[in-house]
């Protein structure tokens, strides 16, 4: 082992805070990551890229958004990850990890999911690569994201409801770690974002960085220049890191991680509730789910219940590398609230004919409110499409006064 071997630390963030039963599996994964992903042993990366193209539909386009450009009087480009198979960037990571599990000789896949996008992507990849798969999903999210639950089942995965706590992503991750600790010898945990113990944050980033690798090239071809700013929504931070990775060394490119401001940034310490998911903007350093990172926690270090109108952003932590890049001043952490995100959802649907995921809508809400500061050329990562969100959008819109939204009463109660 060389001295320069990456130790999984991003400044003080990162690390491997996991039960001992998992450590041998994590060491095995580190080894596999170095051999197959970093060194392309046995042509792993070639096979991964080929499958991403044939099965996933890569490359995804970078599209010039005419009506948004007109509205903001600057050039707005969309990186269309919503066009990836499954409808979100999640497949980049899921396919990479399920394939890696195969190379490692694992026989079973487990995954957690929040919005159901990662679970869906994992279920698709598992079916495609013939691996049995079980997905843990909070009960509350199961109710918010029913179409994705059906999709996972159609692909042959089992969906296990998690009922402890508030039944969202945080509890689903804890429960998947418990399954992994029990079945560690033949099972791989396909984590859904750039979170968790090393090597997950680095490895998931590497699988997702195909987004910025393509976008950087496509911007050069289409716009003849790199963007002045790149916007991506940030939950755990995988589409964010994927969209930023290849731009980090381009000093002229500003990077904006847009978090879910939820209903308010104020925190109810007494109840242990943060009505938002803005861990980069308002959180503090701590240890959760295997890594030291920025967290929503109370003074004692108990993790708070987060909130967002979008399940995919509803998480009390964030990837350690993203927390580090924010501290270093390379990435700007910003946030928008539920109302702004919903409004942006409707705006994008109407102006561009693209129905975005509610997660993605956060990035567009920031563009709406702060277009002036973003420079002449803006690239927004469309992390996913909004089909999965239609029911919640109808419900949430009906509770609010959103000028531009169509009348939702006709749809209330479902289709």
């Amino acid at each position, binding site marked *: 082992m060389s001295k320069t071997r990456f130790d999984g630390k991003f400044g003080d963030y990162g690390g*491997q805070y*996991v039960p001992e039963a998992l450590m041998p599996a994590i060491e095995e994964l580190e080894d596999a990551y170095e051999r197959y992903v970093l060194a392309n042993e046995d042509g792993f990366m070639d096979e991964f890229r080929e499958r991403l193209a044939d099965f996933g539909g890569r490359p995804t386009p970078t599209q010039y958004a005419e009506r948004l450009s007109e509205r903001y009087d600057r050039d707005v480009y969309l990186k269309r990850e919503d066009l990836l198979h499954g409808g979100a960037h999640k497949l980049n990571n899921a396919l990479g990890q399920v394939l890696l599990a195969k190379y490692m000789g694992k026989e079973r896949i487990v995954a957690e999911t929040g919005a159901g996008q990662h679970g869906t992507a994992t279920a698709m990849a598992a079916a495609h690569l013939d691996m049995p798969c079980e997905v843990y999903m909070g009960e509350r999210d199961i109710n918010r994201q029913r179409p994705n639950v059906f999709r996972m089942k159609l692909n042959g995965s089992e969906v296990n409801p998690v009922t402890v706590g508030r039944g969202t992503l945080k509890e689903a991750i*804890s429960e998947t770690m*418990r399954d992994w600790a029990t079945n*560690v010898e033949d099972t791989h945990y396909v984590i859904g974002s750039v979170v968790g113990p090393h090597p997950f944050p680095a490895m998931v980033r590497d699988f997702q960085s195909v987004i910025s690798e393509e976008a950087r090239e496509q911007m050069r071809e289409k716009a003849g220049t790199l963007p002045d700013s790149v916007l991506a929504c940030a939950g755990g931070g995988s589409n964010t890191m994927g969209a930023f990775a290849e731009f980090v060394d381009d000093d002229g490119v500003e990077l904006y991680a847009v978090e879910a401001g939820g209903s308010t940034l104020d925190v109810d310490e007494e109840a242990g509730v943060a009505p938002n998911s803005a861990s980069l903007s308002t959180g503090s350093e*701590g240890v959760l789910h*295997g890594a030291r990172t920025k967290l929503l926690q109370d003074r004692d*270090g108990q993790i708070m219940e987060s909130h967002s109108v979008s399940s995919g952003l509803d998480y009390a932590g964030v990837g350690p590398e993203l927390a580090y890049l924010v501290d270093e001043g390379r990435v700007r952490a910003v946030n928008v609230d539920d109302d702004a995100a919903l409004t942006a959802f409707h705006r994008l649907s109407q102006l561009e004919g693209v129905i975005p995921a509610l997660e993605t809508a956060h990035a567009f809400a920031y563009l709406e409110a702060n277009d002036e500061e973003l420079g002449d050329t803006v690239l927004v990562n469309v992390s996913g499409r909004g089909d999965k969100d239609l029911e919640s959008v109808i419900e949430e819109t009906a509770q609010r006064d959103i000028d531009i939204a169509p009348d939702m009463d006709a749809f209330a109660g479902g289709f």
Partner: protein
Amino acid sequence: MSNPELDAAFADGAAFVPYLAAGDPDFESSIEYVEALERGGADVIELGLPFSEPIAEGPTIQEAVVRSLEGGMTPARFFEFVEALDVDVPLVCMTYYNLIYQYGDESGPRPFVEKAAELGLSGFVVPDLPAEEADPLREACDEFGLDLVFIVAPTTRGDRLERIMEQVSGYVYVQARLGVTGAQDDVSGQTAASLDRLSAYDVPKAVGFGIKTGDHAERIVEGGADGIIVGSALVDIVAEGHENGDDAATVAARLEEKARELKDGAERGLAQRAPQAERT
């Protein structure tokens, strides 16, 4: 470099180490429950300080954690709890790293360890802190004379085992099987293999995860363990009492009885292993 208290607790070779979550389901009842464990024969008591994300725990202890947190348990209350307890056996705090890390004004584990030392706690078990990340806590423990117990899993071998055994003090927590905490109906064959791998190391070996009855305890001690750690089987009694609305004295009596069953089992196991050993 272990504490004399923990050394003494394991000296007779069949230590009974029960676990309860402090404050489950409320502060006062929980004090009675912990004291009942001592009367039932506990040699060391592991006191859980509940963390909101207990990733190493099965459903039984997860629910205990929820009850305790809902009952108002916090790190500050936990220290009051330790102070209010009237027990003579050594106490080991079992919690997750974030709570240790956040306590006090300076970040890092030192203020928590200092406070624990002041109240006479003997050591820590931190299930989400592997040896790789443990240096700051190990240093604070050394500074204040506390022990740091590590968990050895059935998957722990070779270099990893070496690294852990360099850091461990007090006793080593031998995880009897893969998975999370929770009472089981049989005792795993993985235990024997783990004890075998550890036989060369001169530190007490306490086996935990799944032990439920005096017979389990007997077999495990007979198989070479220096002690048994029992959590979920005791927490089950607390949970049942809570659900049925039984008064604290009744639940405490059941805990004492269960503790005695487990301790007696451990003693029998020891007697069978070394029938000629001298006992006073």
